[in-house]
């Protein structure tokens, strides 16, 4: 765990995150990521060998009490969904039935 993020890494991560950073944002993000990751590096002081990662509070609760977290799934039954007109009224571009986007496949 070492913090030394290069500009190229900032660009790579921005690409993965679908962000098109402006030129002047990149050095600022590089500075901030290095500061935060440098601080985060203190976690390497802790020996966590053999400790099960905890992704959800229910990972912990289910072993100590019957909290019923996600224990039962909903019945798989038909039920009304959101009103299409209301949903489409909020879309940036629509033909009233579908969301419209720029072409996905270009020739």
């Amino acid at each position, binding site marked *: 765990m070492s913090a030394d993020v290069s500009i190229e890494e900032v660009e790579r991560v921005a690409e993965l995150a679908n962000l098109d950073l402006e030129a002047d944002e990149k050095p600022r993000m590089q500075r901030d*990521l290095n500061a935060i990751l440098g*601080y985060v590096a203190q*976690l390497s002081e802790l020996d966590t060998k053999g400790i099960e990662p905890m992704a959800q509070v229910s990972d912990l609760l289910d072993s100590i009490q019957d909290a019923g977290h996600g224990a039962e799934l909903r019945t798989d039954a038909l039920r009304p969904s959101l009103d299409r007109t209301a949903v489409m009224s909020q879309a940036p571009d629509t033909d009233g039935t579908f969301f419209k986007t720029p072409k*996905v496949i270009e020739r």
Partner: protein
Amino acid sequence: MTETTSTEPLVEKPATIAALRAGIASGTTKATALAEHYYARIEAHNPLLNVYLSLTKERALQQAERVDALAAKGDPLPPLAGIPLGIKDVLVTRGAPATAGSAILKGYEPPYDATSVARLQAAGAVLLGKINCDEFAMGSSNENSAYGPVRNPVDTDRVPGGSSGGSAAAVAANLAVATLGTDTGGSIRQPASFCGVVGVLPTYGRVSRYGLIAFASSLDRVGPFAGNVRDAAEILGVIAGHDASDATSSRLPVGDYVAESDKDVKGLKIGIPQEYFGEGLDPEVRAAVETGIDALRAAGCEIKPISLKHTSYAIPTYYLVATAEASANLARFDGVRYGYRSPRATNLASMYKLSREEAFGPEVKRRILLGTYALSAGYYDAYYKKAQQVRRLLAEEFLTAFAGVDAIVTPTAPTAAFKLGEKTDDPLAMYLADIYTVTASLAGICGVTVPCGATSSGLPVGMQVLATHFGEGTAFRVARAVETAQA
């Protein structure tokens, strides 16, 4: 600075829910008149404080009229009949804007109500409007909103705390009797401390997250702000409980939190973790919290020093877990189905990238980048998996502590409210404002912030009362004892 248009005091304690309900039931108060009174206060003070982003006056007055009609017939009133409330703008409300404090959702009007909002409405509450917050609930000062910062009503040159700063400020300035906020790493408890009101972090799973615009799904919680502990307990009782629309919502029965809050605290064991009273804690904050601890001792509590030795690892753990989840949750803002779409886009990929680049603010981008980095190939084990392992250590440490004490008491924040702009250029310094709150967030336990005094310059100080999973009743009981001792 914009001046307020009113000569009325900015800080004003709301009337209690019980008093307002009794007035409405007896006919001495009309719900419609009460709503109009609150809209008048909002009109007078909102230009300065910037608390409300939008008002839902038509919906509010229709609800108030229904309540007045019930009262006129002498019918039984639901628990929050006619009580004017405000909603943090990360919770969706049918037919009213929901921006999450972001430009990417400007103008978006969701087609459904969040479960917590629907439950308040069903309990007769009058929903006044939507309240300003840090963008996607990311921040500790409410300075990251695309719609401008909220000012602290106690001192308008200072921040109200974040990210639910608007919800805390609304109660402190009596622009609502109570409000809903959300807490991911301290976003209810810290602003409650900065504004001198009561704020509640319910146990993870106690309140449905359905209709909450997600920041970090394993941490996000919906909870109330109020002017006193009983009112906060009452609101939590209304919004808590199982919801089939949220797979993490608990089926455990909801307690009678108001009755719990009224119970005597004599004989309760209160743990004081030494790690929360060390370097970095402002001496005036320490003194106020110690006054609160003395009040609990005088009320018959047994005060026990305890140790939570992994506390210093909570901030790095939190920022890895939260940003990793945020990077995934915020992928849905891509300009396809709702929200902003860049007019410069020429193809699908540029539509995603330009829409997100143009409409997300700097703190949101910073967290998306950090989270994406921590999840990316080659770094996953070193950062994200490591953070999840430390999360378990922190959570188990609380479980061990709660085997010996009924509640744990700490400062809520290391300082009182800081000045606007004071920390905006240093994200790491800003993150440290959450140093006493993030551990409970990671562990999933519950907590209440209750005012316990003030600094010499009159800034409020809050005490954090933590209880184990689903121990809200105990947290309210201890908080009420601290509140009563100051009355």
